[in-house]
């Protein structure tokens, strides 16, 4: 790990290596061994995606532990825990666990969970130009793993140079780390609970990572209008239930961006 910090700017995705003197066809056996030895164990793009996701994962640690602790108190903990990878979204999962624990009717529990996840349609729409023409298998996999951090990291990477395959492998690396880490965090929360991590201020890490992802997008008046109006509405709607404040923020921010874009 060490020196290379996760970055959202990428120069090359090929993992180029210099050609060493003596490599070649003079002694075929040596040349073959050299080529094998220089091949990285993990694909460079997969590794880059995984490394970029790690700091975000740290940010979700308090939430994952808290969700796990909530699941542990649920009357059907195994069923509640099953949502970790099936729903693959902490806020919606938490809404399902809490509302079912409170005895809400099944349709209400389902509607609440889906309302919280309504924003995923926006993320998918954002990625549609990149993924819509991919193979069915890739589209299914992409859809199954699309959530705030994986979308944010993928959107940043797809705005950078590189082939479609490179970008896809990058996304795979990020999602593998996210899925494994998220499952581990929630399970750890089920087993030990976790308010101590929140006390350490690590709950701030996730919004700060999102901040790092939104700032590079603020390149013109329209994007600044979209971000500031969405931020204002999110602040005003912080107390609204079931993620409706965030949905309102997305709607208002989108309209503000479109209007500001038309005026310039």
């Amino acid at each position, binding site marked *: 790990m060490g020196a290379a910090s996760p970055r959202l700017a990428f120069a090359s995705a090929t993992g180029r290596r210099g050609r060493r003197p003596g490599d070649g066809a003079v002694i075929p056996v040596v040349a073959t061994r050299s080529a094998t030895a220089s091949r990285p164990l993990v694909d460079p793009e997969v590794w880059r995606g995984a490394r970029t996701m790690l700091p975000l994962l740290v940010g979700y640690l308090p939430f994952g532990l808290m969700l796990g602790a909530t699941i542990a108190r649920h009357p059907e903990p195994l069923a509640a825990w099953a949502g970790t990878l099936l729903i693959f979204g902490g806020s919606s999962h938490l809404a399902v666990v809490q509302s079912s624990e409170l005895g809400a009717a099944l349709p209400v529990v389902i509607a609440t969970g889906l309302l919280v996840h309504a924003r995923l349609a926006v993320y998918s729409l954002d990625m549609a130009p990149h993924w819509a023409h991919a193979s069915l298998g890739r589209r299914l996999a992409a859809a199954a793993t699309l959530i705030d951090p994986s979308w944010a990291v993928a959107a940043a990477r797809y705005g950078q140079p590189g082939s479609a395959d490179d970008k896809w492998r990058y996304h795979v690396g990020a999602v593998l780390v996210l899925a494994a880490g998220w499952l581990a965090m929630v399970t750890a929360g089920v087993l030990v609970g976790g308010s101590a991590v929140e006390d350490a201020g690590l709950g701030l890490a996730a919004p700060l990572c999102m901040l790092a992802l939104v*700032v590079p997008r603020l390149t013109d008046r329209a994007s600044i209008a979209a971000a500031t109006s969405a931020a204002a509405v999110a*602040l005003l709607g*912080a107390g609204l239930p079931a993620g409706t404040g965030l949905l309102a*923020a997305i709607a208002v921010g989108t309209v503000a961006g479109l209007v500001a874009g038309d005026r310039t």
Partner: protein
Amino acid sequence: MSTLLAVLAVAAGSFVLRFAPLVVAGAAPSEGLQRVATHAGTAALAGLVVAGLTRHGSTGSAGGLPALLVAAAGAAVVARRRRSLVAVLVAGLGGYWTVVVTATVLT
């Protein structure tokens, strides 16, 4: 049993929400649709930042609002200059803890 049904239904519904735009918009995403998606993405990220900060603030975190503002401002400045997530985290959390420690010492 009802919890498992709810989990399965929300998982299926969430998958449809994630997958449908890849099919519907895939045919020929218009310029207008792309603009909507771009602004919606920016708005969603900004909303997530504020929602995360307010959620953290509502837990009665140490340092209160000043610490949160310093953390966000420090992180934004670093994000503007460098695109390293680690640098942004160090700046944000560093600022947060500086305010928390200072407030603790002064009171």
